[in-house]
């Protein structure tokens, strides 16, 4: 993962609350088996609307999304984070994030920065008055600067450290492999195992047919 210290880029005001991951990337785009190439799928249902913010030239090269509260609710699809990253976003600012989305962002190096809603409103005003205004996100000092607005943001300390160091979670966990092995030795024998597989006798499943 790339290290994240500060980022400066065009801010994109997305004045909507409850933007769920079905809106960030509809299910039809989830059939791919790769981890990249999702930029065309980002906000796919809205991209056909010429009024949509990313279709306006001043914002189209944006890399800091400024969204309404409860961003990233719904489905756990990490594709939502991949689509934002593939489009070029480095950070999303909102007053509230869904838990799974926030977690997924941290794993992928997309900063989910939590600001007060009042500060989000101030930033929206700047971005809408002067489209194309750049935002600087300073992870070290946990501040966002947009025009004359300077606002603090929250991000949990562990995620901040990992983003700044560019660390891979699996590698960090495998440093503790001995502890995992010791823990496994203490697990009760009643705890389930999927293997060897047990199930009722197999029965042939009849295929339903289209009704005429």
């Amino acid at each position, binding site marked *: 993962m790339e290290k994240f210290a500060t980022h400066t880029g065009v801010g994109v005001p997305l*004045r*909507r*609350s*409850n933007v769920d991951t*079905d*809106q960030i990337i509809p*299910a*039809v785009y*989830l*059939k*791919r*088996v*790769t*981890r990249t190439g999702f930029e065309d799928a980002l906000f796919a*249902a809205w991209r056909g609307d010429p009024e949509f913010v990313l279709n306006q030239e001043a914002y189209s090269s944006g890399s800091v999304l400024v969204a309404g509260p*409860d961003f990233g*609710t*719904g*489905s*756990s699809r*990490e*594709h939502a984070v991949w689509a934002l990253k593939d489009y070029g976003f480095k950070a999303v600012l909102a007053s*509230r994030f*869904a*838990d*799974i989305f926030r*977690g*997924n962002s941290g*794993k992928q190096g997309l900063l989910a920065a939590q600001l007060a809603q009042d500060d989000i409103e101030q930033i929206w005003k700047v971005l809408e008055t002067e489209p194309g205004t750049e935002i600087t996100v300073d992870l070290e000092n946990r501040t966002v600067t947009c025009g004359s607005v300077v606002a603090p943001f929250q991000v*949990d*300390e*562990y995620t901040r450290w990992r983003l700044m160091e560019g660390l891979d*979670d*699996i590698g*960090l*966990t*495998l440093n*503790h*492999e001995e*502890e*995992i092995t010791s823990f*496994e030795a203490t*697990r009760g*024998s*009643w*705890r*389930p*195992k*999927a*293997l060897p597989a*047990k*199930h*009722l006798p*197999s*029965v*042939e*499943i009849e*295929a*339903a*047919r289209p009704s005429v």
Partner: protein
Amino acid sequence: MAGTLAEKVWQDHVVRKGSDGAPDLLYIDLHLVHEVTSPQAFEGLRLAGRKVRRPDLTLATEDHNTPTLDIDLPIADLTSRTQIDTLRKNAEEFGVRIHSLGDADQGIVHQVGPQLGLTMPGLTVVCGDSHTSTHGAFGALAFGIGTSEVEHVLATQTLPLAPFKTMAITVNGDLPPGATSKDIILAIIAKIGTGGGQGYVLEYRGEAIRKLSMEARMTVCNMSIEAGARAGMIAPDETTFDYLKGRPHAPEGADWDEAVEYWKTLRSDDDAVFDTEVVLEADDLEPFVTWGTNPGQGLPLSANVPVPEEIADENERVAAERAVEYMGLVPGAPLRDIAVDTVFIGSCTNGRIEDLRSVAKVLKGRKKADNVRVLVVPASARVRLQAEAEGLDEIFLDFGAEWRNAGCSMCLGMNPDQLAPGERSASTSNRNFEGRQGKGGRTHLVSPLVAAATAIRGTLSSLADLDLPEDVDLTSFDGTPLAPLDPRVPLQV
């Protein structure tokens, strides 16, 4: 020290306590896998030269992409077929158990785990699917994860996690006739909002929850994520133990006794402190429907479509304006007047045998409304077999419904089961997001009973709109008690 149910399960899985703000490293007992959120995780393992640490704690099924018709033919959609083929190849390469389309144990991952007896109290259960919260009905700590976390669990059988806050949701009293566990959870979401549970594990408790069957509890926990919570839990009791005993993977002999003794300790202590508490009275509940485009935009069926101008909060007003427009509704009009094109009965929320029985009970001997398409999609192949053994399929077909093979189907429209633009559904699923069931589709979330009544009348309806006795016993037909759902007995089909 006094603890909540969630805290007890958490404590029993800490491999390594985090310090200086670092998360705890939590052991994962059961990892469920499906085709959509796993390909990139397996690819990550391959690139790093890693193995699946515990294939014996991992189970894969095919559900999101699978067609519900012609399942013996090659999947027509090539990208869907590729994704399913990829899961099969990955399962083989990494030694993971898989139940593929056509297999009697195939089905929606959140039905397959419980019906095999793999989901148990006191476990940590994860899956790359937000509705993993379903398994919390057993007193497991179960939550959805992203693909990076799927890879992490495959490689290490653990996850680094910061502790959740806890919220108690107490539901007192008795559900009135015609109201179901779906109405409980829709009412909870409308009350606390789609963000109300963010950062929390919800614990559902109280008299009304205790009285629910295991399957009805699964419906409640399933939609915890729609309230913003990653997990919802219900303390295990005799209902839980009865459901589990004798299932293929349930503990046996001394293991069973040891397990039950432990499971009985899995309840929040009387003096445990929750970060937040919410109380709901079941006696006041009516059948609930959603009118908007997030699951918090719900109202009792007897209400009217909201008038956005009357909403004080600006964000909510803008959201309501947008939702009313997208849904093509008239502000102030009765919800009961809304005509639908499709009724979808299925999903990990309401595709289980009890759901199908209650629907069949209402539909029996009737015909569907003209111009309404009715899809009945069992949550798993075993549920389908059980329904057929009970003759429910005949009732659905006589009614004019389509009786399909198992899978996620129209809940999210990744397979051909989709709404056309502008089409409207009454759906027993869990999400009414814009385009969720097909681009431009309009979804009203409802209980199975409301879905059944709506299929008969063609407009959003409840049992009260039918000439059924109000106290209709939904657990049996014609006074004849139904055989309980007993997966221990092989079905005679």
